[in-house]
């Protein structure tokens, strides 16, 4: 892990500032990019493509950025 990594806690979970900026840029571009592909004046298509763009950005960010979580599994006895 590089030393320049700056991690902070926002909204209950840890994020890396640089990755956060990267994913905001990606999502903004995909959202507004697809939005502008919609035929002008068709509000339904604009909104639909825009949301599709937001989802696309979300998927891209999820692929290139690793969650900052350490996950353990434990065995538990349901009967306490």
């Amino acid at each position: 892990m590089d030393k320049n990594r700056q991690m902070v806690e926002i909204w209950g979970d840890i994020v890396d500032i640089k990755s956060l900026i990267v994913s905001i840029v990606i999502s903004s571009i995909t959202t507004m990019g697809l939005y502008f592909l919609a035929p002008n004046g068709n509000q339904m298509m604009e909104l639909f493509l825009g949301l599709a763009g937001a989802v696309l950005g979300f998927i891209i960010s999820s692929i290139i950025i690793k969650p900052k979580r350490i996950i353990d599994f434990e065995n538990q006895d349901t009967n306490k």
Partner: protein
Amino acid sequence: MDIGILTQMVLAALAAIFIYILIGFIPGTDETSVLMPITLTVVLSGVAPIVVLTFFIAAIVTLNLTNSIPTSLVGLPGGVMSSPMLEHSLFLKDKGLSAMVIKKMSVGALIGTIISIPIALILANFLAPYGAKLQEIGPLLFVLGAIFLSLIGSNKVLSLVSIIPMSILFMALRHLYWGIGLVPEDTNITTSFFLGITIGPLIVSLFNLLNKDIREGQLTKEKKKITIPDDSLDRSLNPLRILNKNEIKRASFAALISNFLFVLSPVGLTILIGEAVSNRIEDPVNRATTAITSMSALIQSTYISGIIIPLIAIGIPLSPTAVGPGGALFNAPPVFTIDNNLHHILSRKEFVVAILIGGVLASSITYIITNRFASRITTFVLKKIPHEAILALFISFILLLAYMDAGLINIFGVLLIGISCGTLNKLGVNYGIQFMALYAAPWIIEKLALF
């Protein structure tokens, strides 16, 4: 009602269930910001109004239950509504009881849904004759609502003082857009302002990071440590075997009384009633499970009554649920307006059919899925979905809706609202007050101008 429409309703409910199961398991997703834009898309897509309602009911029932799951499994609240459960969930998780908690949550949700649908329908019927009158004095009710919520809030004085300045902010932006001819004068921009309020606290947190001193103070080296319990569940799905009699009684009672208080904040009611029905129990484990079961029922009942009663009886969004997540059902120009929305379009029978189809499908499917796959889905989400992507998703929702409402300038307008309202929010002026102020703003400004 023909087969074509019925099929569309079932498909809409299934789509809502699928989408909101995925979203619900993602920790930290605010209900309003995930329900509103997608519902708005469904409304604008031009499907029949009854299909829109089915979609929305299925969406809230699904989301409310799935949001609770990460709370109990990993200690991260799935949304705003599940945060009251956090303390009890963590306590039971430490005892190694997460698997049982999830079952109790899902039965609680079932109880909440089953009780509040009929009660809300009856209450709505009872209130309907007064609906027209209430609608006439609607703006005044929003002002009273804002004052009332201020008085029961955590920072009473600041909340009261901030109502008028917030109204001025909202109306100032609207008048600016009218003045420069960006939107016609009869258009009240609401959707994007609304999301500006919702996203406010996040914007303030992000902007704080731009300040070097604050940022240095918040840096952390630790990743989030999360332990996922193994789901060696007992396979029983019979709700009566999962809860004891006492839990069923208390959860039912909690769900019942919350219906009558539909104008109050759902999260506030969940804390208030959920703690009230459980805090006298002596055994700590029993107390925590009763609190969780009741809260799970309350989350459903407050949302269901908060949307059904204003929709059927009044026609204006007079509850936090209606004004927030359900806003698009009341006002989504050009399809719905305050004078022509689901309230005016659907008959009483259509309301009942849509609510039942959405509610029954969502609660039964979600019940089975959460019981069977809770820990597998949670593991997948936590391993694959970075928090950065979630925050970026919200921000792109806002960009999109702000731009659609009034172009580039509105992106900055919404930013202004986010910074102002987010700061107030952090100081103790809660969402409910801010939403009420947004709806009351035209009336407040009109009256202020008389003096």
